[in-house]
């Protein structure tokens, strides 16, 4: 057995021995992945997993290093990049990924990506134009 294989076993034993907890957070993450465009909150997520919201929050943070809300926002922002690259308008993108306000979407987008959705979209189109021309 190599050093790495021993390490895998050791880490599994220390960090991943509670199967119930693991299934709870995996289920929550998959639910977010499949329903990110809908209205989601901790009450709903914890209700689906038959657990208290504080317990779910603690577990999710323990295994993924972020809260369900942070994960949801990141997922929405990542998906919004795909829609913007396809040419969808800013407001249409905002509502398609589950945000309720174009202005708060733009602020969040800029905070995560470093550019406004408009600037991001312009940059994508000018890059694809450059490739077409060359």
């Amino acid at each position: 057995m190599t050093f790495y294989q021993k390490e895998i076993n050791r880490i599994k034993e220390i960090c991943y021995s509670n199967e119930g907890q693991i299934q709870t957070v995996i289920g929550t993450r998959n639910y977010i992945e499949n329903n990110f465009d809908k209205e989601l909150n901790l009450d709903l997520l914890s209700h689906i997993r038959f657990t208290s919201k504080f317990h779910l929050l603690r577990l999710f943070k323990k295994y993924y290093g972020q809260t369900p809300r942070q994960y949801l926002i990141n997922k929405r922002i990542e998906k919004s990049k795909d829609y913007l690259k396809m040419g969808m308008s800013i407001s249409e993108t905002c509502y398609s990924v589950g945000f309720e306000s174009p202005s708060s979407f733009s602020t969040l987008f800029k905070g995560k990506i470093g550019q406004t959705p408009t600037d991001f979209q312009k940059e994508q189109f000018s890059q694809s134009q450059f490739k077409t021309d060359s």
Partner: protein
Amino acid sequence: MKVKVLSIPVQDQEKALKFYTEILGFIKKVDVPLSEENRWLTVVNKEEQDGTEILLEPSPNHFEPAKTYQKALFDAGIPYTQFNVQNTQQEYDRLENLGVKFSVKPTEMGTVKIAVFNDTCGNNIQIVEML
């Protein structure tokens, strides 16, 4: 500062290019001759061609500490880096059928499933699926 390049040390750039394109499915992006037989050689995911480039770097051939470090990692079974996949089991089946050797078969590690294979250029590479 932006992260645009991931460097992987390889003992043979041509062999690495063949493996990373024909077996793993990346496509060549940049191939610029440098000194002697060396190239600035990068590959990318074909669905993210403007994404992070993998630089296939011949450092083990030119810098003894790089060769020593690569060998130490490899002998310990430690992956040099990892790539995300949709389904570790499917990717394992596909790669095994292509003759790729795995040191770690698909294994669940909490919220992920991993596997580790030999890239034939001096490295173990890990694949990981979010469960």
